[in-house]
């Protein structure tokens, strides 16, 4: 097929604007799948993606479309994750495209992620085609959205195609526009091979299935290839197109989007964004786009049952086969036993990993409070990166501490501006500014410490804006800060799993919150239990659980002993899941309540 008849494109949208539904409709219209095999959100293959309505892993599908000009076009739709945590995946997906549909909800309008992803698409010189979705909704206001497309996105509002992905309205017009307005791929089929790896799937039989966009040259089975960044060589076993399932082809030529199987064992053996070239006739320069995904949020994961540690280790290893963005290393806590210190791309990524571990591997887990990575300069001049409270250096040795800042972009109806500015101020926001968008909407930008966003910022935003606020961020830089390590003591014993690094202004509130949650969840014992929050030797918060004073049964003679012992044994069995801190038994539920709860 001539590359003139190929279109590589993706859909950019804010979460919930109907990206997956639109993809479903395009697939159906092109006969990519029989109706009876069809299920909603067909590109979202993980349960978790369907349930949460989010796309985590990119997917790609090749559609064959016979246009009104009589030609059959090959449309490669590359699905992109919508969430900021997965922005590295978004970038790679965009790099493999020549055009993008900018999907805007007909009632919600332009949102933070629409804008953020649009900027990225512009960086890669993609041709943009606005699409207005959900025009069937009673609240739809196509004229207002056209105005936003003009003023907020700077795109031609009259090019925008109104559709209802749900009902299928406007899909034909959209397909014609894709063919007419999005450009065919450029590239030289006779130049040395350059193919960008934009994603990979793991197949337990075939190993790694790399999703690639061929820029120049061609790739076929039997060919010897080299990965330019990792500098490893492989022999291609199979190439083909992804038409929901893999369809083997003879070769992939410049302009094509498809898959490559080359006996690669684990996803961590390849680097996303790497360039495949021919081992013998190699390209001189790799394609741009290789960027390591850096974890920014850290948490320790422990199995609730200490004997599930080995299972957790295996599950993490398997999970990281197709999510190489997770990093993990052994960690241990005297209260919770052995676990792993893990790094995540963001809070949602952390959430998704936890849920996948629990659901797909049947593990019950405890996660320590998420932390950012602090950059600490010691008096000696040495610089250390600390994300784990247990590795926090002695404060007297610290010359300077810096924490990561983000640039947050929050879009909302104007009437919420005051309370959101207040929220940003509470969260130590700096340099906030805002500008009006179309139709009474405002975009607020502020520079915030990432650490402040880790604690229920998003929930608070949603509450304060009654669901109308949207949020996106990018990492900015490190800035000097004042961090303290808050320890939680139970009867003077430190509970290491509850220690955390907190800005000094927030230390007391956070400590009090922990103390209160523990007091609610630790059962009364035969001692009074003092729960304290402390910075070093200084106590900053305190609660107490009173002792029970009477539990002994009145009678215990020959006939009572066995029954009574069995009762104690049963209680002891229940206590196996409790953690001993000094003489105090702390149930798992207390850790869960403390670690899962929000601050508010």
């Amino acid at each position: 097929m001539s590359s003139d008849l190929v279109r590589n494109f993706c859909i950019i949208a804010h979460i919930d604007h109907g990206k997956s539904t639109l993809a479903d409709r395009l697939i159906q219209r092109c006969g990519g799948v029989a109706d009876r095999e069809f299920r909603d959100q067909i590109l979202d293959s993980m349960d978790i993606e369907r349930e949460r309505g989010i796309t985590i892993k990119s997917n790609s599908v090749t559609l064959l479309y016979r246009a009104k000009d009589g030609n059959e076009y090959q449309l490669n739709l590359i699905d992109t994750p919508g969430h900021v945590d997965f922005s590295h995946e978004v970038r790679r997906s965009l790099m493999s495209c020549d055009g993008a549909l900018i999907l805007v909800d007909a009632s919600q309008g332009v949102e933070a992620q629409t804008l953020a992803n649009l900027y990225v698409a512009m960086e890669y010189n993609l041709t943009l085609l606005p699409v207005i979705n959900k025009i069937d909704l009673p609240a739809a206001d196509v004229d207002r959205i056209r105005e936003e497309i003009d003023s907020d996105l700077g795109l031609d509002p009259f090019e925008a195609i109104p559709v209802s992905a749900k009902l299928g309205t406007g899909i034909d017009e959209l397909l014609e526009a894709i063919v007419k307005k999005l450009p065919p791929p450029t590239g030289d089929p006779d130049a040395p091979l350059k193919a960008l790896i934009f994603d990979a799937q793991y197949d337990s039989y075939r190993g790694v299935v790399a999703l690639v966009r061929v820029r120049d040259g061609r790739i076929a089975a039997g060919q010897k290839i080299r990965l330019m960044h990792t500098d490893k060589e492989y022999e291609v076993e199979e190439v083909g197109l992804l038409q929901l399932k893999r369809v083997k082809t003879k070769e992939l030529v410049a302009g094509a989007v498809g898959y490559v199987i080359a006996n690669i064992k684990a996803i961590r053996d390849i680097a996303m964004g790497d360039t495949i070239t021919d081992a013998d006739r190699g390209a001189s320069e790799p394609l741009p786009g290789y960027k390591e995904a850096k974890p920014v949020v850290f948490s320790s994961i422990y199995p609730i049952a200490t004997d599930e540690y080995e299972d957790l280790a295996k599950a993490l290893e398997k999970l990281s086969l197709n999510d190489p963005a997770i990093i993990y290393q052994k960690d241990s806590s005297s209260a919770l036993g052995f676990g792993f210190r893990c790094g995540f791309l963001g809070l949602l990524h952390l959430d998704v990993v936890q849920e996948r571990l629990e659901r797909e591997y049947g593990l019950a887990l405890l996660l320590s409070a998420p932390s950012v990575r602090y950059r600490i300069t010691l008096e000696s001049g040495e610089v250390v990166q600390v994300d784990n409270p247990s590795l926090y250096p002695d404060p007297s040795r610290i010359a300077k501490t810096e924490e990561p800042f983000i640039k947050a972009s929050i879009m909302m109806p104007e009437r919420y501006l005051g309370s959101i500015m207040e929220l940003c101020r509470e969260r130590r926001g700096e340099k906030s500014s805002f500008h009006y968008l179309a139709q009474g909407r405002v975009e607020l930008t502020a520079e915030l410490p990432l650490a402040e966003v880790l604690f229920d910022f998003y929930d608070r935003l949603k509450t304060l804006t009654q669901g109308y606020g949207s949020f996106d961020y990018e990492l900015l830089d490190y800035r000097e800060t004042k961090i303290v390590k808050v320890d939680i003591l139970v009867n003077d014993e430190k509970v290491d799993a509850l220690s955390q690094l907190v800005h000094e202004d927030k230390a007391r509130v956070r400590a009090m919150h922990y103390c209160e949650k523990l007091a609610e969840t630790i059962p009364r014992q035969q001692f009074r239990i003092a729960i304290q929050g402390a910075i070093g030797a200084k106590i900053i918060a305190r609660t107490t659980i009173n002792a029970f004073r009477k539990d002994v049964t009145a009678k215990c003679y020959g006939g009572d002993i066995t029954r009574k012992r069995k009762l104690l044994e049963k209680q002891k069995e229940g206590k196996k899941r409790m953690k001993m801190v000094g003489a105090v038994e702390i149930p798992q539920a207390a850790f869960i309540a403390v670690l899962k709860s929000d601050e508010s």
Partner: protein
Amino acid sequence: MSPEAGLYVHVPFCSTLCPYCDFAVNLATEARRSRYVELLLTEIALRGRPDAPFDTLYFGGGTPSLLPASGLRRIVETLSDLEWLSAGCRVFLEANPEDVNEASLAGFRQARVSTLSLGVQSLDPESLRFLGRGHTRDEAVRAIALSCRSGFETVSVDLIYGLPGQTEERLRQDLEDAVALGPDHFSCYQLTVHERTLFGRRKREGRLEEASEAAQSGLFRVTHLVLESAGYEAYEVSNFARAPEHRSRHNQKYWTHAPYLGLGPGAHSFDGRTRAWNERSFFDWERRLRREEIPVAGSESLRGEELLLETLMLRLRTREGFDLDDILERFGVDLLDLNRALIDKSLEDALLVRDGSWLRPTLDGLAVADGLAGAFRLSPDPWKAAHL
């Protein structure tokens, strides 16, 4: 030296069923009552002579005072003839105040009863009504006074406290009234509402509200303070003696894991390792005996850790407490090492006191003996053992 064993005889008859009692009892028909003594003698015969004579014989119930004097005497004499009882064997008998009169007391004396335990429960008329007892305050007072004059080595009074709505003041009055009568020993039981009793049903139906933990804790302490200040030493959670010789030699065997043999329906036996229990219903007990079978319904052989848990659970009920060295020697378990934080905290909070290698509960410790026993770690954490 193995401790001397005790013999328990369960007399499963009552004239009325008490609404709080979950013991193996039934309303005695005349026919059953007359068969009981024969059946018990059959069980004695089937069991065969013990290795060593018993130094206590305890008639519990039920209502042993419902046994005809002749029957009681026959049982004791038979045991004596068969050389089951040591020379200094003490004989204990539980009696209801309404069964106490000069004649019955003489009968008990003839049956070598040395300790008489009177099921008074309360001297407060309202409490007696609530407890559904068959005697009045005056009958109880007369029974105590008469018993105390009748030459028993020890006269003990059983009381129940912690009734719904009972104030500390009313309990104090009840105790002081009983103390004034001068018995040698008290057993004071905090009311426990068992599921399979009339009180249990009322509780389920919301017609009976148990005293709160705070109230129970207060009443427990009042009981101990009143009796201790009147010269009765609490040697166990619910038992008080005017002098060491009045402590129940028989009941102490339960708390020290001494061996005991139980005869009669539902009675438990223990040989230091194995605990066995008789058929609980009179019907099954009788049926097994008629087939010339020892009427044991079940048994369990205790593993080391179970014995150790029982040791703590039982010993922490006694003022004597337990000996860490003895436990290390008998079980090979270093409790101190495994429970350093718990023991330190218990000493600091004065739940326990340390006396050489002994740990003894204080009054506050006795009050939470169950929780304390459950808190001890009896073996190293298997996870830690594997990883450290």
